[in-house]
């Protein structure tokens, strides 16, 4: 009697959008069936495996979606939350479950790593010791780029042979990378060569994005700089050493410092194509729109998301939230902007909507969300890095994280500053205060 009351049945029907042959239901199985409403993901997955009878290589774990929302609890909880009757037919979309990421390995660096970029098998890292490094997959530093006077805060590949870096010393540097073969043969790391020093920001450069031949930089001087990948396009700035003698105003110590800076005296110095000033607080992150190279989005501590038109160099839209923002990521297939905030959550915004501020909040982090990276192919998934020393894998269809990646070789309180999702090895690459570049394999995410 009591069992009957407890186990109400729900009518469900499975379907999938996946094209993989092995997980298609044949027509004999493709029928509505009654299951107890207390079933959760695991139970449903068992039923589905039974229906599929693909016992060749063991059961396949599945995730289930109802109306585009990932089922996180039992069917009953879903029905109660949505206020639905238990007599309706639930269409359950199934897809192969995202398995928890598995730890691959870590590369050890000398200092905090502030930024990462990936290109194929190469990992580019910027560090607080002011050195930019290129790593291969075996953990060797292939190249070193020394030149910044402060911590490197942003690194980005422009092409195979060019990288751009931004630093706490208020400059960006355009580097040329040498041929890779040489460095592999020698055991010595090769020094990169600075093509040009890009000056123009008055405070730390914290974020860089590259699209085509344009570079965008976000700086704590409340501005966004537009640069070119070709230094010839930009105006020449007189080096400090040249100013040095003409300008008699410097204080005694300044003069000393200038002499030290003369090392870079021979390097080209370039001015920005444009400086975009509209933010009222330090700009924390900037990205190009992936569909339209003339549009950029920036987030700032002044609580706003600004949309820039790079043709006219104007801010065309400002969305104001109620908290300082730290990072931004575009999900172009969904027309969403994911923004990491200082109040521990990730918000999803539609850049097209001018009035509506927040679509959804993804809660789970316990500190600033400072880095976001999307899955190379899956339009719904991205990974976030936070100061709470975790990375979390998100599916926008669920407002809770799918998986959490913790630091392997560390104790507590090791902030993550950068996270990337590698296409080549299908792994989450993260780095931070613990001086480690950590790789976590993420399988079967399509």
């Amino acid at each position, binding site marked *: 009697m009591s069992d009957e009351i407890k186990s109400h049945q729900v009518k469900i029907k499975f379907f999938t959008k996946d094209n993989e042959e092995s997980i298609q239901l044949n027509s004999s199985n493709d029928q509505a069936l009654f299951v107890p409403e207390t079933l959760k993901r695991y139970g449903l997955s068992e039923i589905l495996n039974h229906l599929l009878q693909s016992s060749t290589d063991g059961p396949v774990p599945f995730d289930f979606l109802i109306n585009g929302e990932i089922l996180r609890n039992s069917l009953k909880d879903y029905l109660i939350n949505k206020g639905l009757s238990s007599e309706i037919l639930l269409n359950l979309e199934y897809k192969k479950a995202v398995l928890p990421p598995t730890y691959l390995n870590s590369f050890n660096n000398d200092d905090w790593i502030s930024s990462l970029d990936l290109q194929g098998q190469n990992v580019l890292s910027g560090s607080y010791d002011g050195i930019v490094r290129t790593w291969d997959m075996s953990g060797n530093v292939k190249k070193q780029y020394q030149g910044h006077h402060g*911590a490197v805060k942003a690194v980005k590949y422009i092409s195979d042979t060019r990288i751009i870096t931004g630093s706490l*010393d208020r400059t960006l540097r355009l580097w040329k990378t040498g041929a890779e073969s040489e460095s592999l043969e020698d055991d010595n790391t090769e020094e990169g060569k600075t093509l040009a020093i890009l000056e123009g920001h008055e405070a730390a450069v914290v974020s860089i994005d590259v699209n085509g031949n344009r570079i965008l930089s976000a700086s*704590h001087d409340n501005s966004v700089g537009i640069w070119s990948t070709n230094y010839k396009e930009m105006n020449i700035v007189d080096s400090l050493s040249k100013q040095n003698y003409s300008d008699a105003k410097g*204080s*005694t*110590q300044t003069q000393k*410092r200038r002499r030290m800076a003369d090392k870079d005296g021979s390097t080209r110095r370039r001015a920005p194509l444009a400086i975009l000033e509209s933010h009222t607080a330090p700009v924390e992150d900037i990205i190009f729109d992936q569909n339209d190279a003339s549009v950029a989005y920036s987030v700032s501590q002044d609580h706003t998301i600004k949309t820039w038109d790079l043709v006219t160099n104007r801010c065309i839209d400002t969305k104001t939230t109620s*908290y300082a923002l730290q990072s931004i990521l575009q999900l172009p297939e969904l027309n969403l902007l994911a923004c990491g905030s200082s109040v521990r959550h990730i918000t999803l915004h539609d850049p097209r909507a001018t009035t509506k501020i927040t679509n959804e909040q993804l809660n789970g982090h316990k500190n600033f969300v*400072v880095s976001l990276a999307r899955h190379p192919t899956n339009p719904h998934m991205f990974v976030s890095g936070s100061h709470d020393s975790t990375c979390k894998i998100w599916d926008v269809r669920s407002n809770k994280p799918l998986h959490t990646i913790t630091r392997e070789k560390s104790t507590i309180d090791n902030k993550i500053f950068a996270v990337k999702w590698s296409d080549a090895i299908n792994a989450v690459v993260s780095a931070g205060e613990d001086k480690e570049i950590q790789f976590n394999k993420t399988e079967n995410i399509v």
Partner: protein
Amino acid sequence: MVSFKNNKITSFLKRKSSEKQNTKTKRSLEDVESEEEIDEMKLEGMIDVNDSENEDAEEEEEAESEGEEAVENFKDIDEEEEQAEEEKVSGSDIADNASGTDVSSVNEEDELNSEDYEESGSDVSSFGDEDVNTPATSIGDTSNVESGITKTIYSDGTLRLIKPEIDPVYESDDSDFFQPKNTIGNIPIEVYDEMPHIGYDINGKRIMRPVKGKDGTSAIDRLLESIDLPAGWTGLVDKDTGGSLNLSNEELELIKKVEMASRGEVMNEEDNEYPEYVDWFSRHLEVMPLQAVPEPKRRFVPSKHEAVRVMKIVKAIREGRITTGKKVREQLQEEKKNYDLWGDNQDEGIDHIMQLRAPKLPPPTNEESYNPPEEYLIPQENKDEIEEFKAKNGFVPTKFAALRKVPGYANSVREKFERSLDLYLAPRVRKNKIQIDPESLIPDLPSPQDLKPFPIMTSNVFKGHADKVRCLDIDPTGEWLATGSDDGTVRVWEILTGREVYKTQLFVKEDEDYDGSKVEALAWNPDQQTGILAIAFGEQLLLVVPPVFGFEKENNGKTKIENGFGFATFGNSKNTIEGNALGVESDENSDNDDEDEEKTQKHSATSGKKKVLPATWNKPTVAQQEKDILISINCQKQDTIKKINWHKKGDYLVSVQPNSGSTAILIHQLSKHMTQSPFGKSKGIIMDCKFHPFKPQIAIATQRVIRVYDLQEQVLIKKLLTGAKWLSSIQFHPRGGDHIIATSFDKKLLWHDLDLGNLPYKTLRYHSKAIRQAGFHNSLPLFATCGDDGMIHIFHNNLYMNDLLKNVLIVPLKKLKGHKVTNNIGVMDICWHPKQPWLFSCGADGTARLWTA
């Protein structure tokens, strides 16, 4: 109706009179016996008419015949012989009877109804009409009987005559219609108002309206009628005549009778409902009294009994047993005044019917006596009985030799005394317990949820210092946090990542020549374009530009510091010559600076006495240069600078050396490398000193008092009595200005509104240990306090700047716990991010923390 009655009455009266005439004629006939024929006729008629009488007579005859033989004969004759004989006999009999019964019969006839009379009347008349002279008419001969009379036989065989109904002809004297009668029936009389007539009589003739109308005479008549009403006036209009309807007294009486009859009352004409009362026995002396008894003796002899009673009263009055009303009242008053507390106030309070006296206790019984008779005592042997008695009555009868041997006696007097004492000393005031809902005492504060954002959690821990972090400050751009620690370092941190970007080691404790100076205070120059950090290190004030800002800003700051050197040397050289110093200062700084007058005045005052400057501005030594020190200001007094505060324009810096007496407070001017001591007299131990955020004022906190001075007028504006025993710091509200919060080592937070007198507007005790620092947020309505209990308290404050009538609202928002208490020292300093709702704190645990929303 009335008229109808009238008719009836008249006819009734008429009939009566005719009857009387009839009886008269009878009597005359009896008297005159000679006229036999007429007599016989009449008798015969009598017999015929009065059947019933006849029968009665026959019965009488039968009764008589029992004793007489003649009766038989008579019967025989009656059957066989002729009518004449029979007539004679019967006639004589009846004639005998008639003489005796004459009067009674008349009386009887009166009582008979009118129909009988009519019959008899008609009889008479019919006889009158007929030929009286036919005596030969026999009984059996019906043909001779007049027409209309039918003969029938009763059931017993006797003859019965039925006479026809009398048709009253018009001439008959009992006709009612003596006047015309209106025949309009139900038609209202008003219809005829326009007409000269008022209706039609039975013959269809008009009944004319009585003379009335417009001529004056009739109006006068009516007036007269209305003045004195004629007898029987009813105010009605007689429908038949059109005149007023008057009724006579008889008619009214009749109506009255009819009404009474209709109500079922029967009224005799003689009965008077209200007969006049005759007072036979009155006080008037009758000439012929109804009784003539002589008056008794007691009426005029004095009463002995009364004399006895009067004498009793007289005696009582004489003896004073009966008093007058006045005395009685006096006595009552006396009783009221002196209340007999111990009296048996049994009657008291029984002034209401619902008040019931408690039932009287039964008098004590023999068992209860202390000395009961033997028979009431229960012998000790039968314990069951004792128990039973005790259970029932609660005591056991016991015998004592004397009352004083009763166990309770010893204490009874004392007990009585104490009870009396209790009564005497007991307060007789009714205490009213005040019912206050404790909830209502809690002020109505807004919910902290509505006052977001405010810091709630640690986002960042700045780790690196090896010893307690004494002080911290955030640079005006909100990028860099500077902390000063007892480990001898001053460090600059990137706030978001917690990365230390700059460090300078001011001293090493292990050094031999270390004099125990500590970094006591830090302050960034409020000018965003300089990046100058002022460090209070012992009695030195060091200015540093940390290399984190980039060339331009750093150079700007450095040049600003170094620019003063030329002036300072110039000033120094002049300073030995008094007058020039004054002149230069006034020349150079006559624009808008607040302290000019102050300074010149001080200089003129002090320079006369001593030519020692309160502080010297020194170029950094080589060792100092390595520590990035750009200038060091060495104060004269060997006393640690505890607090420093920049003026908002970034040119003036005030330093506090608590125990330096008159030079405890020094104001340093960056642009001229000048130091001045604004106060000539010691104010005591100075704990803190702050510039007003926008007015030329300065607030100085001694251990107990805060004084606010106007720098232009050089006067004391306000002296705030905090009530605290030992203040630790003060803080101006950055936007409101005229609000100061002060913290004290005796756990108090005091909010002073300068407009509200010199006592604290609010005193808050939230910390469990000494409070070290308080801080206002620059732009948000937040402030915070920190203390040695390791807690940081966040408060919301609303000054209601637009509403002058409202006082400040202070809402406690959050307790931030995170710093560890080390050596009884908790959080040592706090400061707010200039834009974000973020708070920085540093503590004795060697860390600084960033608290974010």
